[in-house]
């Protein structure tokens, strides 16, 4: 019985898989990625110099700036941190931590009336 199980599962003390190397983006792709990030950052900073942008309400500012922030976040995670190419388990672990943090603090901020005050 235990021998059958061991045949299926292997010994817990005996490593049975080699770690897998994943594909790496080329230097050219890294540079293109950095250029994209620089352009998005420039667009973000440009909003500061646009006349009247500061007078917009917070909701409108968030609607304009958050997509750019999220785009930068995703690009760095996907290409520089290799989440796009690496084992999906790493992506799941990181996304779990990220989603947990967002959920926990959104609940906390809502319960402390942050969004009510902003409106």
């Amino acid at each position: 019985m235990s021998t059958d199980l061991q045949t299926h599962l292997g010994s817990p003390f005996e490593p049975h898989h080699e770690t897998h190397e994943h594909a790496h983006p080329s230097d050219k792709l890294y540079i293109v990625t950095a250029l994209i990030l620089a352009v998005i950052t420039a667009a973000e900073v440009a909003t500061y110099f646009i006349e009247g942008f500061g007078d917009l309400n917070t909701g409108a500012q968030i609607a304009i700036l958050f997509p750019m922030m999220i785009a930068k976040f995703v690009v760095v995670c996907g290409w520089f941190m290799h989440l796009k190419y690496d084992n999906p388990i790493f992506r799941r672990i990181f996304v779990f931590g990220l989603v947990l943090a967002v959920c926990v603090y959104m609940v906390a901020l809502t319960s402390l009336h942050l969004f009510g005050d902003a409106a």
Partner: protein
Amino acid sequence: MSDHILTLGGVQEEQPAHDAHATSTGISNEKLAMWVFLGSDCLLFGALISTYLLLRHRSTTGPEHLRVPKDVFDIPFTSVSSFVLLMSSLTMALAVGAIHRGDIRRCRAFLATTALLGATFIGGQVYEFTAFKREGLGFTTNLFGSAFYTLTGFHGAHVSIGIMFLLSLFVMSLRGNLGPDKAETVEIFGLYWHFVDIVWILIFTIVYLIP
């Protein structure tokens, strides 16, 4: 030596440059540990950013002009700092790419450049803190000051720790202890450095651009 094959989309398929350590899961334990750490660090920075958002407009003490974030920040200066940190992510990625190809000299140069860019960012932060302090905004001046210094200070501490790691890797490479067999070590450190960068991406938008 490692071999690499250029494929469509500019992605190089790496052949293992060394005998990868065997694990029961088939994935590197060290890399897994770093991702778990980064996932948990999201909670730390989530707490700091949330605290800042809650407290930034609730200051009742200190000079009037130092209670409103948008009257305090120097956006052009911080934009340059942000750009410097963003470019340090590029040099870090290039260092990882170089060591995977077995090009130690190039890797060392990119590690040094990354450390230099990180130090420039920290220098900018020290200058910014000093300027705020000179204007009268200290850590205990008001709630905004406390929350701001705690959030950006924690981030600065992460960057500083990263610079120390970078210098350690640089010294290791000078002593000949950083070969292609240590490619994963550099890659794992790279994850930490990029994480510090994405945290700044959030801070820059949430704290500085939406005051």
